[in-house]
């Protein structure tokens, strides 16, 4: 009977495609919006992702996310170095700086100051030049997005394409001369400002004069050291907050989840996909059942139990669910892959697939439940009515 149930559905081509479309739409929207959401959220901690050196990030206790720097006094670096279990600790400056453009306009940039001797915390990947070139006078590395767009020079005539920054070009950062010695690429972050990397000591001379300039201390633990205990020890000895990279990412994501409208916006898109998918699927599936009510009644009269009919309907619902989910999630993945080189944030994770798969199961159950109610309530005697 179950085989026939599937045939009944598949051979009703119009209804079948309609139902599958509903499920496809829902799983496509949920998967795609979910992945963009996760992609965007991952951008919030792109900087942390790129710096794979530190086991532990040390910072002011009030820091809520990666871009929320609360500078420390330089002496804190030495305090951290003194904590047992810390193999090495290097400073990281992270702040905003204004770059003056040829045309006299200013562009805000993120400035990173890396430990002078180790250059730890450097950009994700060098496209041109070497990280070590930062040891040359006035040198900076600019990320490729900034170099080709916001920091690029204007064309010769108005309307000409912008001329990207290249090695040897100079920039004016907060009235200091800087020479580009490399172009880098990092994970996209939530911020659209260009990223500029230089040494810690040069960064603090570029930066607006402030009493405290140390943003983070990046710690490498002794081999075999338990990170949780080390974290606790650092906090105890220095009074600073200490997080593993993953914890810091989570802190950052949670901040954005809590204080921005992003989750709500995506929540709305995802719910809309769910609701529209449910409506289309539910309606089409229900009308499929109604169309077949005469035959379901006939089957009932001929001796099909309610349980069997229920299982048949459930099987029909789940099979369109699987097909629709396969197409929808597949299309979302293809979409994500085809958008790979663009600005779009897209990160499909198994959690998203579980989420949209779960949504599809719920959609199918709702659709089936509507139909099952109708069929269970059906008097088999109706079969004799013309």
């Amino acid at each position, binding site marked *: 009977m179950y085989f*026939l149930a599937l*045939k009944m559905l598949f051979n009703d081509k119009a209804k079948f495609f309609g139902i599958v479309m509903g499920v496809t739409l829902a799983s496509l929207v949920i998967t795609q919006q979910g992945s963009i959401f996760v992609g965007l959220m991952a951008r919030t901690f792109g900087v942390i992702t790129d710096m794979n050196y530190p086991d532990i990030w040390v910072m002011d206790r009030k820091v809520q996310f990666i871009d929320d720097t609360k500078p420390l006094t330089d002496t804190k670096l030495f305090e951290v170095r003194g904590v047992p279990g810390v193999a090495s600790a290097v400073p990281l400056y992270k702040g905003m700086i204004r770059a003056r453009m040829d045309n006299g306009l200013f562009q805000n940039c993120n400035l990173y100051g890396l430990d002078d001797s180790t250059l730890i915390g450097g950009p994700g990947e060098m496209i041109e030049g070497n990280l070590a070139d930062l040891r040359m006078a006035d040198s900076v590395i600019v990320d490729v997005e900034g170099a080709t767009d916001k920091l690029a020079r204007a064309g010769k005539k108005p309307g000409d394409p912008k001329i990207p920054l290249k090695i040897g070009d100079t920039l004016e950062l907060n009235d200091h001369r800087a020479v580009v010695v490399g172009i880098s690429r990092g994970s996209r972050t939530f911020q659209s400002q260009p990223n500029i990397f230089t040494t810690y000591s040069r960064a603090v001379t570029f930066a607006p004069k402030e009493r405290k300039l140390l943003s983070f201390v990046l710690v490498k633990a002794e081999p075999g050291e338990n990170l949780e205990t080390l974290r606790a020890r650092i906090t105890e000895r220095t009074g600073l907050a200490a997080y593993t990279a993953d914890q810091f990412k989570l802190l950052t994501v949670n901040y954005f989840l809590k204080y921005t409208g992003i989750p709500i916006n995506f929540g709305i898109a995802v719910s809309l996909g769910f609701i529209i998918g449910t409506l289309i699927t539910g309606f089409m599936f229900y009308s499929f059942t109604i169309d*077949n009510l005469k035959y379901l009644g*006939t*089957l*009932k*009269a001929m*001796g*099909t139990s309610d349980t069997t009919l229920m299982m048949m309907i459930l099987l029909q619902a789940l099979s369109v669910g699987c097909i629709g989910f396969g197409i929808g999630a597949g299309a979302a993945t293809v979409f994500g892959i085809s958008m790979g080189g663009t600005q779009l944030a897209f990160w499909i994770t198994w959690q998203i697939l579980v989420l949209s798969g779960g949504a599809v199961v719920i959609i199918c159950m709702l659709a089936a439940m509507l139909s099952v109610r109708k069929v269970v309530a059906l008097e088999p*005697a109706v079969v004799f009515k013309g």
Partner: protein
Amino acid sequence: MTTAVPTQLGEADTLGGGGRKLAVRCRNVVKNYGTGTSVVRALRGIDLDVYEGELLMLVGPSGCGKTTLISVIAGVLDRDQGECTVFGQDFSAMNSRQRTRFRGQTIGFVFQSFNLIPTLTIAENVSVPLLLNGVNRHAALKKAKEMLDVVGLGQRVQDTPNRLSGGQQQRVAIARALVHDPRLIVCDEPTSALDHETGHKIVELLKGVAMSGNRSLVVVTHDNRIFDFADRIAHMDDGQVDKIVGSAKELYGPNMQSAQSGGGHS
């Protein structure tokens, strides 16, 4: 062929008046639709026996309760009062699972509008009662094809119902009603969607194929041209069986010809 069949109601539980075994025994069956002032008294105390191996036709004016009665007999509708047993079994003494099972094993259905599932092939349609009785799909299809052969559609097994004529579809329905070898077949107006000639052939087929062993047939019909196929005819009026006769002549008297052309009982 009808003379030996008793026309009086039998008293015994399983044996009719003539010593023949009873397939269906109804006593004082009452069925009302609705409640209060809008109540429709569809069956007002039906007494009826159907013997094993007979073809009983149920006739009478529209709305007299024929469909209601075979629905009760076939166990798809609950009666309000009275007794009704099918091969000694009472549907109202069974739970819904047992009832469904008993229907699936014991009763074959033929409907006025065929009720074949349009998205399945006719062989698959015919295999349904076998599948419901636990036969595996392969064997069920094989048996279904054999049955379709019997009704003369062996060449069309892969067709869907809508590619067949009405008469052919009703043949499929008959194959479906017979394929699992049920002991009782109920047919509600099996010929009324067909032209007279086709209808005649269908009843001929029903009588020829279905009446084997001691299988019983209850056929509800308006179509007095097929009355001759009946072993007995039960006439209903206003929710009661008022006459049980051995032939159409007895029903309409010697002027049967005029009764037929007048269509007084349809």
